[in-house]
C-alpha cells in the first residue's frame, strides 16, 4: 500500500454566521470571522489516496486523472468564489457554516464517490499555514 498526495490551491471568501444565533452571540462565537462582508483565504488542499502499485505502470494512480477529479469536483466550483453564496453546501436553507472543518468534510464527500482510480485516504485543507483540518471519512 502506497499513499500519494496531490496538492492544489484555491482562493475563496466566506463569513461565519448562524442565523439561529442573535447578533451578539454570532459576534461572541465567531469574532472577526462574523464580519458580514466576509473575508478570504488562500486555501491549500491536499488529497491523499492509497492503493497498491500497478505492476505495469508503476503508479498508485494516474495523477492526471486525480487532478481532473479535484478540479471538476472542487476547484472549478470553489476557486475565486464566495462560499456562502456560490457553493451549494454553504448556501441555502440547509447551509453549513463554511469553517475549515466543514470544508474538509464537504470536499471528502465530493471526492470519495468520484475517485474510481484509487481509494481516498485523507483530505487536508489549510486555511492558513497555521491552521488545517483533516477528514478521513470517519463517521
Amino acid at each position, binding site marked *: 500500500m502506497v499513499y500519494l498526495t496531490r496538492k492544489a490551491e484555491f482562493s475563496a471568501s466566506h463569513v*461565519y454566521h*448562524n442565523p*439561529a*444565533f442573535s447578533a451578539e452571540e454570532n459576534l461572541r*462565537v*465567531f*469574532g472577526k470571522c462574523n464580519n458580514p462582508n466576509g473575508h478570504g483565504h488562500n486555501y491549500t488542499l491536499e488529497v491523499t489516496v492509497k492503493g497498491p502499485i500497478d505492476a505495469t505502470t508503476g503508479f498508485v494512480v494516474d495523477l492526471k486523472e486525480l487532478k481532473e477529479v479535484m478540479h471538476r469536483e472542487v476547484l472549478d466550483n470553489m476557486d475565486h468564489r464566495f462560499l456562502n453564496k456560490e457553493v451549494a453546501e454553504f448556501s441555502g436553507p440547509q447551509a*453549513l*457554516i*463554511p*469553517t*475549515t*472543518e*466543514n470544508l*474538509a*468534510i464537504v470536499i*471528502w*464527500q465530493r471526492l470519495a464517490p468520484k475517485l474510481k482510480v484509487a481509494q481516498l485516504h485523507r483530505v487536508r485543507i489549510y486555511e492558513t*499555514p*497555521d*491552521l*488545517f*483540518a*483533516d*477528514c*478521513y*471519512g*470517519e*463517521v
Partner: protein
Amino acid sequence: MKVHLSRRYWFAASHRLHSDALSDEANRETYGKCNNPYGHGHNYFLEVTLSGPVDSATGMVCNLADLDGFVHSHILERFDHDHLNLRPEFAGIVPTTENLCVVIDGIVRRGFTQAHLHSVRIEETMMNSFEYAGGAELHP
C-alpha cells in the same frame, strides 16, 4: 463526520541533553554536541491536533480562541524563552523532543476540556519532527 483540526504555534527554548544515569563519557558519546554543558536552543514548532465531530451550530470541532488561549497560557508562557532543563516538568527527565512531546501532550490532555486531544507534533528543526498521541496509534 469526524474531523481532525490542527493548529501550529512556536516557541524558543534552550536545553541540554544529559542523563544522570550515564557517565560523563557516555553522555558525550550518546548526545554528542547536544551534551554541551551550557546548553543550546531551538525554535520549536508545535502542532496541536484535536479530533471530534463538528458542532452543527458553529461548524467547529472547537472554538480556536479557546485552544489559542489555553496553549498560550499553559504551554507558550511556560516554555517560551526558558531553559527546559530548569523547568520542574523536566526534573529527572532528559528534555529530548520525544519527552517534550509527552510533557506537552500531558498538559493539554489533562487541562484542555473543550475538545479531544488527538496528538501533538513538534518540529525541533526543519529536519526532524516528533509526534505523540497519548500513547495511542497515530493514524486512523
